[in-house]
């Protein structure tokens, strides 16, 4: 009797340390943040000393035009970045899905930008965008075109370009993997059925890649909402609030404005947004699996 009990508890005992670490490392900070978001909290105070203000932080943010502006910048940034990266990444994958000599070297080169630390990427692009000594303006000058105020008037476009440079490879790699796992014979059948290269892409390759593309897009979207370092280094949110994405605003609210409670509330808004996206992603996978299972059942009935 006693041994049976011990046997049943064994797995939980083995898992206990992991659970404890999870609780401390994951749930405690998260709870701390949620708890803090209900307080008027200055970094010089401990959380216990801070005044409890209920939903005040959330309500203030809801009506704060600067927060709206920041959210707008984030949404615009995420939308453009992800859509352009998807088109470029998938396009590149379709182009390079063939046996060329030196293909593996080429592929490794393509993913290099992804491997560089974001701060370095930010610094690199800041120098290239520099109004007088930057690569781009010197080039424009040398061919007789007017200079562009990259990190001024066109700051949002400029950070979008930098992000596209860094993260297109991610989509390229996943799309290439998806392409190479497509059923060869279905593509051969399409060639025999009379499909041109374009028709193969539109009617066969893209529809079959779609599940992978949707998940890839969602992953990129989640990342795009959280991007911080590159923009911090390049523009620090400026000029004005034109590139102040949410993550940056959160960090400034906490450090410059010394309003930890508001920063926590903002983080929670972002968390809810990302949670919705993640749930959408899981829901999509679940629906796919359920559909596949249902079809299999139907096939076995016949």
């Amino acid at each position, binding site marked *: 009797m006693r041994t049976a009990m011990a046997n049943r508890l064994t797995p939980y005992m083995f898992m206990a340390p992991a659970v404890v670490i999870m609780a401390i490392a994951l749930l405690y900070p998260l709870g701390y943040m949620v708890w803090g978001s209900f307080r008027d909290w200055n970094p010089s105070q401990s959380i216990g000393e801070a005044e409890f203000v209920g939903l005040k932080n959330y309500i203030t943010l809801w009506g704060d035009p600067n927060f709206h502006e920041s959210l707008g910048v984030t949404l615009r940034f995420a939308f453009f970045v992800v859509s352009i990266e998807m088109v470029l990444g998938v396009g590149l994958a379709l182009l390079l899905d063939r046996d060329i000599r030196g293909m593996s070297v080429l592929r490794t080169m393509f993913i290099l930008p992804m491997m560089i630390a974001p701060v370095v990427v930010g610094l690199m692009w800041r120098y290239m965008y520099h109004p007088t000594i930057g690569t781009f303006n010197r080039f424009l000058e040398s061919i007789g075109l007017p200079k562009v105020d990259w990190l001024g008037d066109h700051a949002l476009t400029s950070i979008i370009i930098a992000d596209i440079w860094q993260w297109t490879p991610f989509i390229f790699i996943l799309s290439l993997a998806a392409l190479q796992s497509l059923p060869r014979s279905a593509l*051969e059948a399409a*060639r*025999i059925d009379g*499909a041109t290269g374009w028709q193969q892409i539109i*009617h066969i390759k893209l529809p079959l890649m779609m599940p992978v593309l949707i998940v890839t897009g969602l992953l990129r979207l989640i990342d795009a909402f959280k991007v911080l370092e590159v923009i911090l280094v390049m523009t620090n949110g400026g000029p004005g609030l034109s590139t102040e994405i949410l993550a940056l605003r959160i960090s400034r609210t906490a450090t410059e404005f010394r309003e930890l409670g508001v920063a926590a509330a903002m983080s929670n808004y972002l968390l809810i947004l990302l949670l919705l996206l993640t749930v959408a992603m899981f829901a999509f996978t679940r629906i796919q699996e359920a559909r596949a299972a249902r079809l299999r059942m139907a096939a*076995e009935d016949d």
Partner: protein
Amino acid sequence: MPTIHLDKLIKRYGDVQVLHGIELEMADNEFTVLVGPSGCGKSTTLRMVAGLEDVSEGEIYVDGKPVSHLEPKDRDLAMVFQDYALYPHMNVAQNISFALRLAKRPKPEIDAKVREVADMVGLTEFLHRKPGALSGGQRQRVAMARALAKDSGIFLFDEPLSNLDAKLRGQMRAELAVMSQRVQKNMLYVTHDQIEAMTLADRIVVMHGGYIQQQGTPEELFKRPINKFVAGFLGSPPMNFLNGQIDERSGAIYVVGDGFEVELEGAKADAARQHSSKNIILGVRPSDLRFDADAPANKSLSLNVMVSEYVGAQSVLLCKCGSAEVMVELNSETPVALGQTLTFAVNPNGVHLFDQDNETAL
């Protein structure tokens, strides 16, 4: 319908040559089956005709016109793949009509065609299902229907039945035979299954090691194989081979080997007479060995039973003849004990002789 002519077709992958000058002529409305063990180059040949593999050397002529530089879509052909190669995201009707839609045919014509071929292969009630919701046999039918809908002059089949279970395979084989009678097209069919080859083909082409071994009607190949490979490949259970020597004694010609002496008759004896005391291989199909306890010793084999496989009305016995193994068929009602020695009469017309050095028929 077009004729196909393969002219000294050669295929190389890097330094490895896998086809060594395939020379083949296919007439109108002919059902040609390429058959051989895996790696013999039969699928490569088919894929070259389809345009899915490049031609290294030689040329493919369809109706006298060279086509090896053309894309698959410009070759007027339809193909059925081993794994069906259906488009998983399209339903049955869309799969069948894909080629017609790409060709921008008018919608009423497409609908009519889809209904016609779906009816022909018995898929009418599944038109709105996706391939994932179909059984193996149904998928095979969709692949067939898709090929039929194209109305091409040439039909290519790449081992279309080998993914089906044995019972379904037999059924689909029969349907395929009926279909080929109905549509009257030039068909090129690849299989490793000699039964498919024998039952479907107007003409069988046996391939081995990148060479055509022999081509002809199923009967020609079965009755007059030109070498040991063809003889052993066609027929089930396979032909038995016994090493021996031609021996002439007082006017009669014998094949003498370990544990047997068989007298040859008629044309066989005449053919063998020129090869006196030559080392040869004696080939006899199980169907040419008849259980007969009273058969004279010089017209029979004495076989020691090692294994008996019961397969219904007939049993297949694996026996020893000297040091060689011999398979025979026997009515299952005949009582047989393992280790027993039985006498089997050799059908004098069913004897095949092959040269031991180059394995060609004498």
